[in-house]
């Protein structure tokens, strides 16, 4: 009765089907890589030359470039948003900062490494300092400088995958979309071209580097032209105009109860960019985005003064949240099920929103929020002595999951003798669910909608049959998970988990937009 997808799609089929997107993303990726590389060369080359003249500065400049290099990419992208907003600009600046060090360093090394005898001969024959630079120092330093540019290119191809976090596009859209949608083909469709780009550019630059003096003269002249052409790739796809801009998460983009439904049921046409959940709300508040996808219980709704648009055609069905537990863990820990079920029915929508608000906006720790709540409900008990057996809890990377995991951890420690080990921050759905099927974790909170659409990837006729009912969906996924994965859905926690479209309250009021249909009407009026 539970049929798998009738047909398991192959990678080639996926790539063929998504070839438009793949092409756009690849071009964006190449464009991002080379625009930033081009600017990095424009800045790095003169800077490297300058510090090889003013030796006092070489230490500090190389030091600063080195420090920039060690800032984690995600953090650097995060720093950029308040300064430059989202999209291409901050991504290019971040990439450029990474590319700077190898270029500056190698230019400096190359130029200071030129044989002083040769340099002296050049001066002694009557060359001025520019002639010495362009006819002697740069040509002789060129192999070393090219090696630096080569390193920078490979770094940039890699870091550019993260540009999709701040809506700058690139192959990261497939990679991170695939991770949150549990779609291996999608991940590979992004990762393989990205790896191939890195190998290809590395290879081409290594050829350039190996050219002898005879040929290198011409090659160095066409390099800037080539760099410019490759940079232009980025601007081809994004010639696009719309009154409002939407920012959707990769997961939302790929789900039937997400963007696919918006397009098929509402016929919504809006300029859409893909962005990570972590920066989406901030970008909406900063007016970089006008419409975003989010969860109806998200605390940031309140924090950033956003309103949910009424889903008048009912494409965002509500789903339950419930703990998922491996069946063998339930056998090993007999008290586990009853303990976890203590939370069932206690958290409704407004309670969950309030709890989220406390972590997202008031910046209270998930631990404190969890403990306060359990104490208020009279459920909190001081931890017992552990008997050495350990339950492994997991969670995805966002506030609500952290709070729930903390509550479960406190309940288990208070009501049983089991120890608890938490593995929080397990990326998206694919990562946390793979961790569970591979017996790395025993428990994590999941949503039945995600179970149905992302994990089971239920066929269209099944989805239609369930008619967006949360109870029938719960029953379906419970049975299917037991049969396919030997994983049990425990009792629903209580609150609904549903997607929602949100706008800034002020803008929604000004434009008189209350429902998604209102939004569509506004977009369609000229």
């Amino acid at each position: 009765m539970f049929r798998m997808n009738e047909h398991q799609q192959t990678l080639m089929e996926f790539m063929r089907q998504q070839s438009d997107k793949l092409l756009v993303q690849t071009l964006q990726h190449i464009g991002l890589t080379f625009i930033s590389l081009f600017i990095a060369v424009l800045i790095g080359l003169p800077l490297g030359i300058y510090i090889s003249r003013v030796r006092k500065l070489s230490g500090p400049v190389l030091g600063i470039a080195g420090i920039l290099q060690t800032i984690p990419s995600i953090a650097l992208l995060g720093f950029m948003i308040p300064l430059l907003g989202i999209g291409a600009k901050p991504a290019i600046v971040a990439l450029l900062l990474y590319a700077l060090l190898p270029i500056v360093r190698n230019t400096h090394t190359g130029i200071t490494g030129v044989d002083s005898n040769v340099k002296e001969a050049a001066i002694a024959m009557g060359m001025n300092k520019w002639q010495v630079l362009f006819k002697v120092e740069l040509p002789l330093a060129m192999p070393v400088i090219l090696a630096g540019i080569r390193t920078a290119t490979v770094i940039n191809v890699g870091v550019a995958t993260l540009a999709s976090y701040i809506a700058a596009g690139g192959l990261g859209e497939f990679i991170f979309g695939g991770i949150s949608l549990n779609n291996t083909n999608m991940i590979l469709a992004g990762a393989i071209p990205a790896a191939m780009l890195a190998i290809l550019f590395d290879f081409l630059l290594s050829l350039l580097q190996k050219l002898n003096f005879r040929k290198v003269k011409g090659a160095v002249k066409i390099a800037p032209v080539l760099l410019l052409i490759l940079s232009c790739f980025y601007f081809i796809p994004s010639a696009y105009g719309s009154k409002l801009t939407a920012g959707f998460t990769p997961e939302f983009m790929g789900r039937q109860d997400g963007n696919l439904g918006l397009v098929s049921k509402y016929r919504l046409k809006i300029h859409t960019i893909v962005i990570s959940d972590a920066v989406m709300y901030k970008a909406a508040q900063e007016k970089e985005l006008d419409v975003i996808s989010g969860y109806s219980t998200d605390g940031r709704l309140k924090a950033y003064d956003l309103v949910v648009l009424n889903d008048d055609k009912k494409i965002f069905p509500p789903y339950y949240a419930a703990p998922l537990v491996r069946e063998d863990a339930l056998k090993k820990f007999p008290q586990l099920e009853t303990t976890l079920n203590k939370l069932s029915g206690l958290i409704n929508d407004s309670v969950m929103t309030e709890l989220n608000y406390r972590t997202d906006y008031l910046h209270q720790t998930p631990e404190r929020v969890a403990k306060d709540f359990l104490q208020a409900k009279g459920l909190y008990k001081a931890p017992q002595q552990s008997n050495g057996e350990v339950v492994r809890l997991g969670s995805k990377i966002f506030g609500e999951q952290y709070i729930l995991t903390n509550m479960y951890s406190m309940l288990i420690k208070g009501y049983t003798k089991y120890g608890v080990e938490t593995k929080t921050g397990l990326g998206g759905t694919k990562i946390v669910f793979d961790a569970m099927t591979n017996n790395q974790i025993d428990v994590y909170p999941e949503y039945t909608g995600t179970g149905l659409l992302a994990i089971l990837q239920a066929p269209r006729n099944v989805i239609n049959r369930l008619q967006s009912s949360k109870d029938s969906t719960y029953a379906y996924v419970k049975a299917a998970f037991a049969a396919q994965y030997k994983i049990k859905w425990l009792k629903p926690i209580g609150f609904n988990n549903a997607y929602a479209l949100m706008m800034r309250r002020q803008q929604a009021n000004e434009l008189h937009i209350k429902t998604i249909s209102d939004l569509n009407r506004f977009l369609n009026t000229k």
Partner: protein
Amino acid sequence: MIKVSNLVKTFGQTHAVNNISFVVAKGETLALLGTSGCGKTTTLKMLNRLIEPDSGTIEIDGQNILSQAPELLRRSIGYVLQNNGLFPHYTVAENIAIVPNLLKWNKAKIETRTNELLEKLHLPKEYLNAYPAELSGGQQQRVGLARALVADAPVLLMDEPFGALDNVTRSKIHAEFKLLDELKRKTIILVTHDVQEAFLLADRIALMDKGQIVQIGTAAELLFNPANDFVKDFLKEQHLQLELKTIKLGDIWQYLPADGRRINTSQLAANAGVWEALDTFKFYPRENINIINQQTREVRSVTFDQLMSAYSRFKNHVPHE
């Protein structure tokens, strides 16, 4: 003519050049000779302003070089470096054409001049498109010389130009150097720490020590009229050989037996050194050598023993010894 007066250069505590003055006449070759670190290179580099002097003046043909634009000055002075300083990314032809290009010569002129020099310096034309790394050390040094000569600058500065060569190659290039007509009309300053080289190639020698010139004069003046013990000691090790090279057969003419010419023997001109005559006896020990005095057309014939006795009688009559 080059006129250097009271030149001083200090690097921190080091008095690299300490009040040096000398004059080099037009067409003359002066060797700057001395031990390592005595300030030869520093002196030379001040002449084309690779190093700026602390004080003192330098005139070339009556012009104060310190008031000229350094780039223009340098294009009028040939410079040969110890490690040749050829551009590794330029072919031989391109290396030679550097100064002509700076002087904006046309292509045809550069090509004609390059070919002329290659011939004079015994470099095969096939090397024109080779890179310096593909040449031997001796060939590289010849290209370095060609590069310095190509624009026919009236002044040539050479910093240990043959220092990196093996003995055989060096002797060969020395011989060619002496015969090269391009060099005969040039004013040359040659830095070396090789006494033999200085004696062989220079008209006059400036012996330097600790940033100063100890004695300046011809080879014979230094050898037979040393200013002090330093000069004497400096030449002591190779004294006999230098002497035999410095004393010409003409100098000992009056002590040679006044016999007429013999037939079927080797011949030497009277302006050859005694060393050359000894070299000839090395191959024909039992023979006579005919020595020809070009001015008087007189010929005297000597055996090895007769040559040696004439030499020692000459030595006993040399003043100041």
